[in-house]
């Protein structure tokens, strides 16, 4: 199997969400994890602006400017949804009530350090939003990101070079090439795309990789690519 496209990466992350989870999805690619969850099933999606039970995007004629998610997208509510204020929403995050948050990232270190908020673009203002609260407060922090930058530089590294979002917080990373756990001993590859050797994955990675004895092929159904 060739490298996963972005939709397939989101699909793959969705497969690991346990039944009954309360899940927070970050801006960009992570929100598409919801496309691969049953919208009326037992997984609830939390949005940092206070929506507990975010449903699919609203059809244009039903879109309501007062009903938005953390990415300002006009959404619907799923059956059983509720809405709280920002204080209660972040108490939910900080208090460890979110089972898993799935975030985008620029870099993840072998210690689990996460860098996903400041790319040091000159002259652009900073934006942190709820990323640091989620990194510190969610019971599990997973990352979806391409294995390398467009220029080929590794994103899985020994130590982050960009400003940190949180220290030692990431537990699992879904890339286009592999599923990698962060363990006390560093990165452990759980799944690897079929046409790549362990050596080739190591060559695209900025830190030492260990491979699980039961390391499996990383596969996903055919899905059209796109954000």
């Amino acid at each position, binding site marked *: 199997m060739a490298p996963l496209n972005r939709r397939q990466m989101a699909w793959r992350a969705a497969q690991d969400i346990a039944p009954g989870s309360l899940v927070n999805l970050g801006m960009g690619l992570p929100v598409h994890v919801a496309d691969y969850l049953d919208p009326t099933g037992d997984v609830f999606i939390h949005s940092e602006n206070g929506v507990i039970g975010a449903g699919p995007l609203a059809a244009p004629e039903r879109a309501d400017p*007062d009903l938005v998610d953390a990415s300002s997208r006009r959404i619907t509510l799923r059956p059983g949804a509720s*809405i709280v*204020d*920002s*204080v209660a929403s*972040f108490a939910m995050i900080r208090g460890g009530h979110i089972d898993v948050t799935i975030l985008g990232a620029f870099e993840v270190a072998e210690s689990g350090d996460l860098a996903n908020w400041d790319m040091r673009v000159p002259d652009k*203002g900073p934006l942190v939003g709820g990323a*640091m609260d989620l990194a510190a407060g969610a019971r599990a922090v997973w990352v979806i990101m391409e294995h390398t930058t467009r220029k080929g530089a590794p994103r899985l590294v020994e130590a982050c070079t960009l400003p940190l979002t*949180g220290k030692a917080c990431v537990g699992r990373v879904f890339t286009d090439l592999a599923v990698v756990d962060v363990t006390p001993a560093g990165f452990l590859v759980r799944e690897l795309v079929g046409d790549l050797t362990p050596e080739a994955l190591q060559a695209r990675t900025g830190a030492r990789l260990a491979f699980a004895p039961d390391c499996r092929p990383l596969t996903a159904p055919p899905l059209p690519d796109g954000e």
Partner: protein
Amino acid sequence: MPIDKRAGSAQEALSDVADGATVMISGFGGAGFPNLLIRALRDLGRRDLTLVVNSATHPYSLTHELIEAGQVRKVVCSAARGRTKDLSAFERLWVEGKIELALLPQGTFAEAIRAGGAGIPAFYTAAGLGTDLTKDREVRRFDGRAYVLEHAIRGDLALIRADAADLFGNLAFRYAQMNFAPAMATAARLVVAEVRTVSEAPLPHERVQLPGVYVDRIVTAPR
């Protein structure tokens, strides 16, 4: 005198706001921006303001009009990045060193305002520990985990938007309009709400999401 918190106009509701005020502005992602009140504050020409607002650059909020007009000295927020290639009003002034920025993790921002309204001067949180945003913070360990000390935020004025009000100032919100509004209303000396509709009859108590005791003035602003 029966209570009736309706003001004649947005400008009248803000007429006694002073230059140099710390102004809290609610809203998130297009829901609950008090844009009528923000524009009135701009038209009144109050200067040297400190804004406490989650985003300094959200395109649907008129916060940028205050910033563009040079009326803002400092912004306390969790987001200050524009969405377009061209720099936002905030970024232009910030790059030129003409506006001050205090960036906080969004949950810390919310909790600092809550604390401000709840008589709590400071609190510990793990958010931002070990990052550039908390470099100067006091760190303390509780039960084996490290936390940073964050200070409460209070304001002179809060501008909020809700859906419905009664004459007592009790407020009900639609969907995700609530966001920062209830906390800001507890943390500011003067609280002005713009609402879609004001009912002469009291709102049923179970509909009230923000008690009117926190709200000083109401202005009607159909969307």
